[in-house]
């Protein structure tokens, strides 16, 4: 088990097709533990956004760079940690996509959706790793 409490780890190349594998594994785990549809929708969305950010913005689709996906799902919570090999970024510098002047911008909503749909979203200091947690309300 890694220091972030995750027991499953995958290393995938920086391409969107490869990102399907961790998405499907996490989905299967959520279904196995009986997470409600709403939580599955939320986690799916957040994981896809995080993976796309890591591939496109973090690694800039560089085939020489990989994405690390660690996850641990049990009956009470799902933890997902996604790290890229990029230079990182400052999440606070991303403009508020819901501000009137930004509404018609075609990008910049991924992080906001991750924060909304997950219970916890923390970025590493460098900004190239995100740790997300979602609790299974069906169990509480």
């Amino acid at each position, binding site marked *: 088990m890694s220091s972030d409490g995750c027991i499953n780890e995958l290393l995938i190349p920086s391409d*969107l*097709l490869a*990102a*399907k594998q961790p998405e499907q594994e996490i989905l299967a785990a959520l279904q196995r533990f009986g997470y409600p549809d*709403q939580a599955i*929708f939320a986690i*799916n*969305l957040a994981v*896809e*956004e995080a993976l*796309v950010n890591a591939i496109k913005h973090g690694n800039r689709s560089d085939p020489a760079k990989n994405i690390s996906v660690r996850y641990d799902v049990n009956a009470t919570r799902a933890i997902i940690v996604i790290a890229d090999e990029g230079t990182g970024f400052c999440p606070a510098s991303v403009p508020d*996509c*819901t501000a009137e002047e930004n*509404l*018609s*911008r*075609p*990008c*910049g*909503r*991924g992080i*906001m*959706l991750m924060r*909304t749909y997950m219970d916890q979203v923390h970025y590493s200091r460098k900004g190239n790793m995100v740790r997300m947690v979602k609790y299974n309300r069906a169990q509480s």
Partner: protein
Amino acid sequence: MADTYQHLRVNDLTRAVVIEFAERKILEELSIVEIGEELSQVAGSLPGRTLIISFANVDHLSSATLGMLIKLREQVARTNGQLILADIKPQILEVFKITKLNRLFEICDTMGAALDKAGRQS
């Protein structure tokens, strides 16, 4: 309409052009670029028209989809056309509300309501 599309079903009615997605769960990152290109082709071939996109088949949506729809809305508006989104499932509609894009887009609960709106405006 003579054009055929891989990801879309396009039905040109008198008062509006109704667009449906051909498969479920297609609005994911891998296919969104192709879908965006096809939607742009439809809009380009029918300038000034009202396009209604049915979300009845859509169970999944990402920020890339939202970006694609914003670009399409701008393209349609440039020719004085109109884009209406209809039949959006509650879970998907919530994404529009969270991002406040329900303020930007014309959204109708049902296809019937969208066609009525298109009829009133044509």
